[in-house]
């Protein structure tokens, strides 16, 4: 790993400031992708802005019929959360299938979606459930958030704060994991809820997307 300046801001505002101030800053959320990349010396950011000290970014609540999940909430927390399990069990199941137990104890929803790995689970979860990504600047519907392979609508100094999920009538997530990496070879989230029937697929392309011809005539 190349060395870097480490920042541990206490608020999102400070984090954004640190990010703007850095010549080549990088946000550290759970670090389960970023740290291995740094270890392999495949990136050399000047500054690491660690969101681990911002308590406001953690936690899950139900609000206005939505499930609201802080960006720094770990996969294990989502997987084990009673509210998520009751309201969107498919989302809990999705979180429970990411990586392995230790990765789930560190990896976060915000980190996962900001990274937007083409084989990650959460992007399909967000698109398939019609979620909204909230940042320090604006609200972005999931459909507009994931742009391409590792590309999101996030601007340079934009930080994901919260993700809100409308509660569907029913939903399910199924994935075929790569036997080695356990990333999704393909993962599909299907939901039926306030936004109609939604289908999203991860792994089978550069980003999570609805399939070209959703079966049974379902569409957005």
């Amino acid at each position, binding site marked *: 790993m190349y060395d*870097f300046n*480490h920042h*541990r801001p206490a608020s999102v505002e400070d984090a954004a400031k640190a990010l703007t101030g850095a010549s080549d800053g990088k946000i550290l959320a759970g670090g389960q992708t970023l*740290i*291995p990349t740094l270890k392999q010396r495949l990136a050399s950011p000047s500054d690491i802005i*660690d969101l681990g000290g911002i308590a406001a970014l953690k936690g899950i609540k139900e609000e206005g019929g939505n499930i609201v999940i802080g960006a720094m909430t770990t996969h294990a927390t989502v997987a084990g959360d009673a509210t998520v399990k009751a309201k969107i069990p498919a989302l809990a199941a999705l979180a429970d299938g990411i*990586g392995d*137990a230790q990765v789930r*104890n560190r990896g976060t929803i915000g980190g996962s979606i900001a990274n937007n790995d083409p084989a990650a689970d959460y992007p399909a979860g967000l698109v398939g459930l019609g979620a909204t990504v909230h940042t320090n600047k604006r609200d972005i519907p999931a459909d507009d958030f994931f742009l391409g392979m590792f590309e999101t609508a996030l601007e340079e100094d934009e930080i994901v704060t919260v993700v809100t999920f409308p509660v569907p009538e029913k939903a399910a997530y199924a994935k075929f994991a790569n036997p080695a990496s356990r990333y999704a070879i393909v993962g599909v989230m299907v939901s039926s809820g306030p936004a109609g029937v939604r289908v999203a697929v991860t792994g089978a392309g550069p980003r999570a997307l609805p399939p070209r011809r959703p079966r049974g005539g379902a569409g957005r």
Partner: protein
Amino acid sequence: MPSVSMTVNGRAVTGDVEGRTLLVQFLRENLSLTGTHVGCDTSQCGACVVHVNGESVKSCTMLAVQADGAEVTTIEGLAKDGELHPMQEAFRENHGLQCGFCTPGMVMSAVDLLQKNPNPDEGEIREWLEGNICRCTGYHNIVKAIQTAAASMKG
């Protein structure tokens, strides 16, 4: 150079580290706690699993600065007063280890499993161990050991 303070195996420790210093490096190099091992560089093998604030994590995929202020338990901190933890004892009893290299991470991971699920069935144990690779045992006796520990920890 950032300074970090944490409690490791019940002992308060402080050290100067670089931002890039991994938790596992801090444990092995600064604290000479060499029971935690490094077996891969892509966060999959689990030889480096320790507990941070009670939860199992891969200490090779966490910066030392991220553990600032945390309670860390390593394999060295599991046995109390020379008495093996029931999980360690169960591994010994069931021949759940051979070369011993993956063992510290395996044991720490297994302890976390029983914290979360005190009564796991074989399938749940095997699934939980997805983040720990053992090349020696074929996992058969590791699974048995965890079942034994679960039984003995229930009391």
